[in-house]
């Protein structure tokens, strides 16, 4: 039973708004001002980038110190094919850099002509981004540095004007969505204006839309069954809030519809009847718009209402 597998691009994209605590706020504001801050633990280590709690003791830590904008590479990896979102779009080295005055290392990119120009122990300095907003990307990257240990190292009060208190973390992931065997068959049938479900070989219920498994018996559903096109409203609600970008006047009715021959109700909009006349038991049929890949809505067939006993198991 080979089926043409459906595929479609799927982009999942979201901006997370994150608030910063006092330590992260000082650190990221500092970057905006070309100042690198670390935090001192009670046993005297300086953590850069700084955290609010000691990773060893879990003590709350707040004592900020300024460290250098120069440092030493502690390990590296040559990235000859930069990927989307990474700091540089030309080949670069990922590096962990222990900044002068710090006891821990910061992850970032190192701009270098090639892997032969990078080694553990090499001296580097921060190349600042031209436009800085209070984010880790205010460090554009690191670059090789031949000079002496530089930068002010010492206590810092963390006071800046116009503190950065939050960041927006953008995320975007690209997928190719493939719905699998059962849903592919369902979607393909819809393009012929047919609705197909699948029957469980064990309990004989017909599921629509089919997902390939009977959720009651936990076995594969494989026998394809055409259902509908007519069906019965088993329950419904009246929607009074207009959804963004949805060109449908409120109020409208959204209903569960048990298609004839199906043992599970699917949901769809009801139209062609005043919203306050929709009722349980109403007999409906799908309405397709030209070129539509699924029913736009369902409308009354004019048949007498179905008796409650005929659909009570599906409510």
């Amino acid at each position, binding site marked *: 039973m080979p089926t043409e597998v459906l595929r479609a691009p799927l982009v999942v994209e979201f901006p997370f708004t994150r608030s910063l605590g006092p330590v992260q706020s000082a650190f990221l504001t500092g970057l905006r001002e070309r100042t690198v801050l670390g935090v001192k633990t009670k046993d005297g280590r300086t953590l850069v980038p700084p955290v609010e709690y000691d*990773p060893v003791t879990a003590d709350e830590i707040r004592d900020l110190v300024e460290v250098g904008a120069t440092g030493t590479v502690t390990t590296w990896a040559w990235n000859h094919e930069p990927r989307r979102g990474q700091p540089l779009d030309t080949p670069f080295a990922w590096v962990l850099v222990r900044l002068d005055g710090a006891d821990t290392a910061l992850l970032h990119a190192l701009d270098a002509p090639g892997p032969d120009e990078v080694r553990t122990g090499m001296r580097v300095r921060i190349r600042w981004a031209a436009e800085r907003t209070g984010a880790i990307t205010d460090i554009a990257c690191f670059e090789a540095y031949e000079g002496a240990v530089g930068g002010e190292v010492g206590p810092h009060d963390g006071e800046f004007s116009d503190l950065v208190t939050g960041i927006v*973390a953008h995320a975007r992931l690209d997928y190719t969505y493939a719905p699998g065997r059962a849903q592919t068959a369902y979607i393909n049938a819809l393009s012929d204006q047919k609705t197909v479900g699948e029957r469980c070989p064990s309990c004989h219920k017909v599921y629509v839309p089919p997902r390939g498994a009977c959720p009651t018996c936990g076995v594969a559903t494989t026998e394809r069954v055409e259902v509908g096109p007519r069906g019965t409203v088993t329950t419904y609600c009246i929607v009074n809030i207009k959804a963004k970008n949805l060109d449908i006047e409120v109020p409208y009715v959204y209903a569960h519809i048990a298609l004839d021959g199906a043992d599970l109700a699917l949901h769809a909009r009801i139209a062609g009847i005043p919203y306050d006349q929709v009722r349980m038991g109403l007999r409906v049929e799908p309405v397709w718009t030209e070129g539509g890949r699924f029913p736009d809505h369902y409308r009354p067939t004019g048949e007498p209402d179905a008796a409650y006993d005929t659909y009570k198991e599906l409510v």
Partner: protein
Amino acid sequence: MPSAKPSARPSVMRPVRDIAIVAFGQTDHLRSTDELSEVEMLMPVLHQVLAATGLKTSDIGFTCSGSSDYLAGRAFSFTMALDGVGAWPPISESHVEMDGAWALYEAWTKLLTGEADTALVYSYGKSSPGSVRDVLTRQLDPYYVAPLWPDSVALAALQAQALIDAGDADEPALAGVAARSRQDASANSHAQLRGSVAQGDYVVRPLRTGDCPPIGDGAAAVILAAGERARDLCERPAWIRGIDHRVEAHSLGVRDLTDSPSSRLAAERAGAFERPVDTAELHAPFTSQEVVLRKALKLGADVAVNPSGGALAANPVMAAGLIRLGEAAARIHRGESDRALAHATSGPCLQQNLVAVLEGDS
């Protein structure tokens, strides 16, 4: 009253009940399974372990799964996967957004309470719909690290270079780990990469294609049972003598990347160091990580490490750790091992580690 003085040496947790892995099943791991939805991929594996024990879904006391929506980009995908279990009438069920090894840990604790005698644990992952290197960046620190989009190979490469700098490995040694793993996988019909595989070009230097795991889709399931129930269901149960998991600081720059103290501590708490093991199934997706783990877990040359081929032969993300537990148990079931260590990891550069010690009746 002050509590008892803590001993200088961490104590080994003794399970209050004998609990064993009594069945294990896995899919053939493939680069892509477009023709199957997640539940369609998973269901045959569930049926496999149920058939092996003769149990029906309704006999299972507790069900626990591991997966991540980020892999396939499908929201609440674990609820869809539940269709494959048969969750009606209602069952006792839980899910972890982690590798199934951690779902097994939860199921083990559930059985320890005595509230259930059997448990079904499963996990699955489809990496083929997206780019797993990019997807895994979303588990990183969102303030300082994730905005730089360092992919999973890049982070592993930083760890590999640290090992090389420390003199713990060199590129030929890493290539040797790759070759041995894929050679061992020749005997594993489920593995994705088997036999001779070219070491290839650098992906992120110093790691080459051969140092990295294949990207693929797959699922796995095990059944746990307690006490006499385990003996009824399996001729030679793989008894879980100890299991523990530990985590390290998330910031890579705080950690010594050449060591895995969390693995060592988990192993100690699981009792791994009390007597030698003959087998170790290590969840080391990158060759360099096997070097770190062998050292941290004090595994000698006489231990069969990853006879299944390990994650270098098949790495269905979210299932690969559970598969290590399953492979170790299966060797005990078959009488090929008497005492095995199983390890699972999660997060960048071995951030989180779980270790279990499994034994067969002698």
